[in-house]
């Protein structure tokens, strides 16, 4: 097992060609550590996070992530009041085919996750 499951190598991103938000960023996050990313406004902290989550493709360099990523945003607002089970079920998006609906197995997995955190009664 790799001791640095998250690695950035010469990473850089530019929203417009030539206008780099950051460049040549290399780092490795050690397993079990708490990693803080500090910097002034506009220095690319959120951009780096979006790249890490796969929501943005980096302009330069690579990101290596071992296993799966989870992200807890500071602010989360949904337009519609989905049930707790509906929300957790959305986490199965990668397992559900493009033209398919979540199966009973997906619902069971979502319920199991809720159960694990002792909040199944909110489903």
């Amino acid at each position, binding site marked *: 097992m790799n001791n640095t499951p998250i690695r950035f190598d010469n990473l850089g991103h530019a929203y417009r060609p030539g206008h780099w938000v950051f460049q040549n960023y290399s780092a490795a996050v050690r397993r079990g550590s708490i990693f803080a990313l500090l910097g002034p406004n506009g220095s690319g902290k959120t951009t780096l996070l*979006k790249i890490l*989550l*796969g*929501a943005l493709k980096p302009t330069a360099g690579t990101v290596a992530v071992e296993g799966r*990523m989870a*992200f807890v*945003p500071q602010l989360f607002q*949904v*337009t*519609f*009041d*989905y*049930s707790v089970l*509906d929300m957790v079920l*959305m*986490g199965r*998006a*990668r397992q*559900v085919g*493009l*033209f*398919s*609906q*979540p199966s009973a197995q997906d619902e069971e997995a979502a319920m199991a996750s809720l159960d694990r955190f002792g909040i199944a009664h909110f489903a």
Partner: protein
Amino acid sequence: MAGVFVGALFMAFVSLVVSVSDDSHLPGIAYWLLGTFVGSDAKKVAIVGIPTLCASAILMTFRWRFNLLSLGDLDARTLGVNVGALRWAVIALVSVIIASQVAVSGVVGWIGLVVPHCARMLVGPDHRRLLPTAALLGALFVLGLDDFTRAVLRAEIPVGVLSALVGTPLVCFLLWKSQGKGWGRE
């Protein structure tokens, strides 16, 4: 705002067509602009039915993914959704449905604003239930309005006029009711 701009542009095209049309075609154009089912026949049903059924069948398979899209682009993308491609596919499919319907019955407005919100109040926001419910309710609503004018009023009032008369106050009421609460199950 995009709707206002696109609407204004295409209204200009409609005005252009009206201005260069032969006088004998004007009554038909006027009725089409009001939105009507007058003159419905098997050919028109086929023009509406085939594209609507095909596009709806594909849209229905995407219906759970609408939940993901409603989370916003960033969250949907981190869940593995190809947001851009899915959005364009949905816009294209909905455009096919709307174009085929408007081509035969003209402008029947307000249905798309009123019915989905009513359906959401009935079955909640999960698009797996919401989409088929809204489709069924929408069809029943329009047919009900048209039947009402024919059976009760015994007049040939264009359904587009009635849908606006019923739809406008209904949307105002729903907006007022949902202020600060979001659209949800009541």
